[in-house]
């Protein structure tokens, strides 16, 4: 009996063992996954010359490739990973922006501005990893999904008339890119809340705690961005899975109560600020799920040059003196907290001075001792942010609602002068500028009217334009796309591109509800492929690099967006389509009626002739009939005379007609059912 039972026990034991093994294995996988899924939160603060402050929140989460981990995630938002798997998105960027980045006073030649300054409204581009003919379907589904995820009307981008296919001018240059913008989309807290839901701690802990809605939307510019990169495990040996980068860039005006108090002579002093004064909140410790959580304060190159640190003069020794206290408590400003580390930028070719980065670790702080950083200015300072090589602006020319011209003008900035003086030794110095312009179909651009002006002198198009790609707009089908590479001499002061257009007319049901407000033309993208905005900071340990700083090190070309233009289109009279229809029909009726009348009219003599002829030819029955009808007309009180044959004849004719009409009706019904 025992022997008989043994195998069962054995089996049971083996089974348990295997099950335990599986359990352990699964646990290890689980731990591994946890190790690979990372989340980090960072905040960068940067004072601007025009008394404003930039707050740049950077949240980054990464997930392992889906093949090794199934579809389960610990930190990474499931919605995003499903989206990537479903539509095979290789790279995607979605941004919601309100306000316009002021390139002149906030700069345009640093990684923050060239990758975070976005056009107003919604901008979406995506690179797909699907065959060419499936891309449009994927894009359509993606826009609908994102529209649901972010409570925005991104689904308007599904129609082919709103998105375009950049050939080469757009940074992730390949044929699989789709690019679309909604310039008039209003961005508000309803878009921010779903965006925050993607964070593991939401806005309940960590740096995201600072995102106080009233203070955010009081700002001059805010842009929330979602950047997504996924690498297929099969395509490359080293895979990083999906990297989701969420940034929120806000430009705020610090409450300068102190500035008002001080008298007029100190008007130019920069306002002092602290996190609690800007956001009305403090950071009470990090988000426990975050790998790293830090706050940075960036002092611009121009500002550093202006501040004149004591160690600045003897170049190299500045790096040695970094840790010395005089860096953060110096005659011109005072920091309210001690920075944990100070980074100095690696020397670059373009500029003389180097920017400084103060780092604060949030981990050290807690609920009882919240983190707050303040900057108190002691002396007034004025400096300039580093600007793009050429400042781009765009405007309309002409008046009236029939036609006009779009002009993109490029003006040299102080940077170009410096660049020019640096490169003046070699004679042939060229400045390449890429222009990417999408126009909706109702702005019908005449590409043959493209003119180029350099220093206000008209120049031959072939001299200046190195490369051009045009895909003309199709009515209600696709927008017009113009991609141009300009090759300008370095000493250029101004350059301008003009293109003429006709304004289209929409069908009455295609106008939006507020048709008289006008239609938006999306921003043009001006990029400078020869220039790369990157900031490399000297770091001790390259292993434990912060995602924000490694982002700064990436070489991205300098890019800037032009203004959104508002084009007024002619509107029909919305109140009276009915009147138009009736009047037109009346005119047609007049035409048909009068022409038929003329064609059919017979003069009296002809009529008599025909009657006589008819009388001769026709037999007895019709004659009788006509006589009868005359009689009937003459005396109606004698219906007894009517012969049965004639009445039956009339009836048969009537019946025939009725049958004909019924047959027609039946046929109609049959055809259309």
């Amino acid at each position: 009996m025992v022997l008989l039972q043994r195998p069962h026990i054995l089996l049971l034991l083996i089974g348990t063992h295997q099950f335990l093994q599986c359990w352990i294995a699964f646990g290890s996988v689980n731990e591994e996954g946890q190790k690979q899924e990372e989340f980090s939160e960072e905040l960068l603060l940067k004072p601007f010359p025009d008394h404003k402050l930039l707050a740049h929140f950077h949240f980054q989460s990464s997930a392992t490739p889906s093949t090794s981990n199934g579809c389960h995630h610990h930190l990474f938002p499931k919605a995003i990973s499903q989206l990537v798997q479903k539509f095979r998105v290789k790279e995607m960027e979605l941004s919601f922006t309100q306000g316009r980045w002021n390139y002149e006073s906030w700069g345009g030649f640093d990684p923050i501005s060239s990758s975070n300054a976005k056009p107003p409204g919604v901008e979406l581009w995506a690179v797909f990893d699907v065959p060419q003919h499936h891309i449009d379907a994927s894009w359509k589904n993606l826009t609908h999904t994102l529209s649901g995820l972010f409570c925005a009307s991104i689904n308007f981008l599904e129609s082919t008339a709103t998105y375009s296919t950049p050939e080469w001018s757009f940074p992730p240059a390949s044929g699989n890119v789709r690019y679309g913008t909604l310039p008039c989309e209003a961005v508000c807290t309803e878009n921010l809340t779903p965006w925050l839901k993607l964070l593991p701690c939401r806005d309940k802990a960590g740096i995201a705690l600072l995102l106080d809605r009233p203070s955010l939307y009081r700002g001059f510019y805010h842009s929330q961005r979602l950047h997504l990169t996924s690498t297929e495990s099969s395509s490359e040996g080293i895979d990083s899975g999906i990297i989701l980068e969420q940034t929120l860039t806000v430009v705020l005006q610090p409450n300068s109560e102190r500035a008002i108090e001080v008298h007029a002579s100190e008007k130019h002093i920069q306002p002092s600020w602290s996190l609690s004064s800007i956001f009305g909140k403090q950071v009470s410790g990090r988000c426990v799920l975050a790998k790293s959580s830090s706050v940075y304060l960036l002092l611009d190159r121009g500002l550093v040059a202006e501040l004149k640190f004591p160690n600045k003069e003897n170049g190299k020794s500045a790096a040695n003196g970094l840790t010395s206290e005089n860096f953060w408590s110096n005659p011109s400003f005072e920091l309210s907290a001690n920075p944990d580390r100070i980074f100095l930028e690696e020397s670059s070719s373009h500029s003389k001075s180097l920017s400084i980065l103060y780092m604060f670790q949030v981990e050290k702080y807690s609920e009882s001792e919240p983190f707050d950083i303040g900057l108190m200015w002691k002396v007034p300072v004025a400096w300039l942010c580093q600007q793009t090589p050429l400042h781009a602006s765009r405007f309309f020319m002409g008046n009236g609602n029939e036609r006009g011209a779009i002009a993109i003008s490029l003006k040299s900035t102080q940077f170009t002068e410096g660049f020019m003086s640096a490169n003046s030794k070699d004679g042939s110095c060229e400045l390449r500028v890429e222009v990417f312009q999408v126009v909706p179909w109702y702005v019908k651009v005449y590409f043959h009217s493209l003119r180029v002006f350099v220093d206000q002198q008209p120049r031959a198009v072939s001299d200046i334009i190195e490369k051009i790609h045009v895909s003309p707009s199709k009515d209600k089908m696709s927008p017009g796309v113009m991609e141009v590479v300009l090759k300008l001499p370095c000493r250029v002061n101004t350059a301008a591109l003009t293109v003429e257009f006709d304004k289209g007319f929409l069908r009455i049901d295609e106008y939006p509800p507020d048709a008289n407000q006008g239609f938006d033309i999306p921003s043009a993208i001006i990029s400078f492929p020869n220039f790369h905005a990157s900031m490399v900071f000297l770091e001790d340990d390259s292993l434990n690099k912060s995602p924000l700083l490694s982002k700064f090190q990436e070489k991205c070309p300098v890019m800037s967006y032009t203004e959104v233009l508002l084009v007024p289109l002619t509107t029909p009279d919305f109140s009276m389509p009915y009147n138009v229809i009736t009047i037109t029909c009346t005119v047609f009726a007049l035409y048909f009626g009068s022409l038929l009348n003329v064609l059919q009219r017979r003069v009296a003599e002809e009529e008599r002739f025909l009657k006589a002829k008819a009388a001769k030819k026709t037999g007895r029955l019709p004659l009788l009939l006509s006589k009868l009808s005359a009689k009937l007309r003459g005396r109606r009180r004698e219906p007894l005379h009517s012969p049965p044959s004639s009445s039956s004849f009339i009836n048969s004719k009537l019946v025939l007609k009725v049958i004909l009409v019924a047959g027609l009706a039946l046929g109609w019904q049959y055809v259309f059912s």
Partner: protein
Amino acid sequence: MEKVKKKIGSFSFWNWVIASIIFRLILIYFPKNLNLSSRPEVSTPLTSFRRLAEGYWLKQSSMSPYAGSMYHGSPLLLSLLGPLTINRIEGQPNHLLYSLVSVIADVVSAMLIRATGQNLRLAYLRSLESLHLVKQIEVSEFLFSGDIAALIYLCNPFTIVACVGLSTSPIENMAVILCLYGACSRLIPLAAFGWVIATHLSLYPAILIIPVIFLLGCGPDSPPRKLFLQRHQQKEVLNQSKLPPRFSWGPIIHFAFWAFLWSVYVLVLCGISLKQFGGLWEMFKSTYGFILTVEDLSPNIGVLWNFFLIVFHVNILFMILPLAIRLRHRPCYLAFVYVAICSMLKSYPSVGDSALYLGLLDMQFSLFLFCGYVGVSLLSPVMHNLWIWRGTGNANFYFATAMVYACLQIVLVVEGVSAMLNHDRKLRNLITGKPQDAKS
């Protein structure tokens, strides 16, 4: 006596022709081209010069000229006239060559109208002769009808504006007139060529095939056979030789053969010029398709832009049959009526079209119609300005003038048709000898 009269007439004719050409050249030299080329009355999406230039530019940069929805004309026109949009003589306005081409086209069409008119007059006289009615109508002023028609065509402000405004309609008009001329003078290949080219350029002249068939089948102007029969009934004289020829199928088969040949030729040429850009199907889609599905809704002087319905394209076809039955013995007049109806119900009409039928018309203008045309041509720019440029008016301002224009054309067509029918009636009455009933 008559010779002297003729001489004086022809002398003044040439004077007028030269004067009108000089006037055109002066207008061409005006700076900025008087902004005529962008007037909606002159250049429609189908005939605009700027669109032609855009199409040529696209073709030059190795893209299909139909890539955008800019150009909707024929590829042949593009290869013939396209280079003229770029080439320029130093110091001259850059549209000079193109304007010269349209002036030449205008003059050629005027000459063709003159020749057609003379042909018609001869045929008319012959047919009157055959009816023994010459004496009664001898004094009428049919003598210089060709000259007068040609002069009306040349000096018509609409023609001048269409010519100076750089639209392609002078060329399209020339093709139509070429077709009619060929049919009148029984040059069958020429008629077929004109018909094929006109249809290729603007589709609507396709319906001219009916008058052309009548022209070829029965001759340019023949009184109805019934009249002869009536006359012979009356006088009891039968002269078989003087009977007008019956409808003959020979020339029509000939015409069909040539039309087929020419259309194959044109299609092959188009196919060659569009070989690398999607071929013929794209051409059909963006030329004929564009005409039939009114895609461009920019206002023009037609009535349809405000009414955007496709249903009304059938309209043109509605009246063809009744008119053909009734005016079958006067094919030229039938052609005129067709052209007028087309220009009225077209989806993208322009004054160039009305210039064509006004040229074909050799009838006295009534003062009412004249005032109407003048009023429309003055009011429509004003209304357009008010609506589009100043923004003070709305679409109905401009639509009203378009409405009036359409009404005028309707009145013109109807009056014309009834005048012709009355004329026939009078002839018949003269034959049957009942002058007292002529007016009724």
